């Protein structure tokens, strides 16, 4: 029920500016974007969909930096593992 799904805005409906067609993995639904009037989403932008409403926009820059952090951790871990293996081989 508290499900929030990221979806890409395909288009804002011209006759109903409070609705946007949103794509979730090739599946489309008209979503109410009335909660995002301060910064309305445009086609190509991503929103978080909850019970038929877009609750917020997804900030791609924030997402990228978070992933970079996770990747760096992963890299560090890989390095450590490699080091561990080397040390054992010794």
């Amino acid at each position: 029920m508290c499900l929030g799904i990221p979806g890409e805005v395909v288009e804002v409906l011209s006759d109903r500016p409070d609705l946007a067609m949103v794509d979730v993995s090739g599946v489309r639904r008209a979503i109410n974007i009335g909660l995002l009037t301060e910064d309305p989403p445009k086609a190509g932008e991503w929103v978080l969909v909850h019970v038929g409403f877009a609750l917020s926009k997804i900030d791609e820059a924030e997402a990228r930096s978070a992933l970079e952090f996770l990747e760096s951790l992963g890299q560090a871990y890989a390095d450590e593992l490699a080091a561990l293996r080397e040390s054992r081989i010794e």
Partner: protein
Amino acid sequence: MRFVDEYRDADKARALAARIAALCEPGRQYRFMEVCGGHTHTIYKHGLEDYLPETVTLVHGPGCPVCVIPMGRVDDAVHIARQSEVILTSFGDMMRVPGGEGSFFDAKANGADIRMVYSPLDALKLARQHPDRHVVFMAIGFETTAPSTAMTVLRAAAEGITNFSVFCNHVTIIPAIKAILDSPDLRLDGFLGPGHVSTVIGARPYEFIAAEYGKPLVVAGFEPLDLLQSIYLLLKQLSEGRAEVENQYRRVVPWDGNPVALRAVAEVMELRPYFEWRGLGFISHSALRVRDTYAAFDAERRFTVPGVRVADPKSCQCGEVLKGVLKPWECKVFGTACTPETPIGTCMVSPEGACAAYYNFGRFTRSRVKEATAR
């Protein structure tokens, strides 16, 4: 799926798990509460505990909106649904929740017209399609969902629809967290803050937790890596002696929330002086009701409901589970008398309920990551 699959990556999870294990002080037990039922669901659905040392315990919180609805409110809704002109609409999660006189499914089998909807807007659509009926929307949920209810009422009012109302059971998260913090029998080391609630209210309202109770809180996303990272951030704060509010879910949650959503809720709803939470009892200023201005859309005023307080079954320990005092399997009836097919308590119903999540997904003998136990 973008913004989903990246956060379900096993390689990154292994790296994070190693960091987490490394941050744990040997011999120290860590107890973090995930407030939100959505988090509980993610944890079990993805097997997240497999990445955690045995010394890190995730304590399930009160943030499953279905779980906190008291039996009396279910009976009230059934009472409304029994009126011949009424179509009661509800999210699927509520359908199986037991009231004192059975669930919505039971009422439906007995002839009440109860339909599942995906969105409150679908309920409004039904009202348009059936001008001769009255459509009631069973509104439940925390601040995540309240704005959609409010927006739907505003839309109904704008369209002049007269055969639609909401049975408002919206609750607010902060009083629930406060009740947990004030309960004497709970020892917690930190909180995983509810991500979706926070898209609406922002991260700021949690500051008192760090400031007044000295507990760290990390607002967490809903993918398993979000949670793992948030646990990592909590452990990091603890290891560094900090107690702050951090926002792991920055891609979605603005620090100040969604002002449009907050305004919509404030326009349509107001705080109730008190509200009964299942298992937690009455909590003051913890729930919303429809304002006088929108009385025409308030099912509680349109229909006189019994409003009877129904005591939970004696064997039910949902209160303890919702407060995190008991693990689901510690409830005496867990998995035997109380199962998803024959739930005694609400926590066994919703996919976000701790008992249901543990029963459905976690009910097997598992071993935690070696790194932790091997230390």
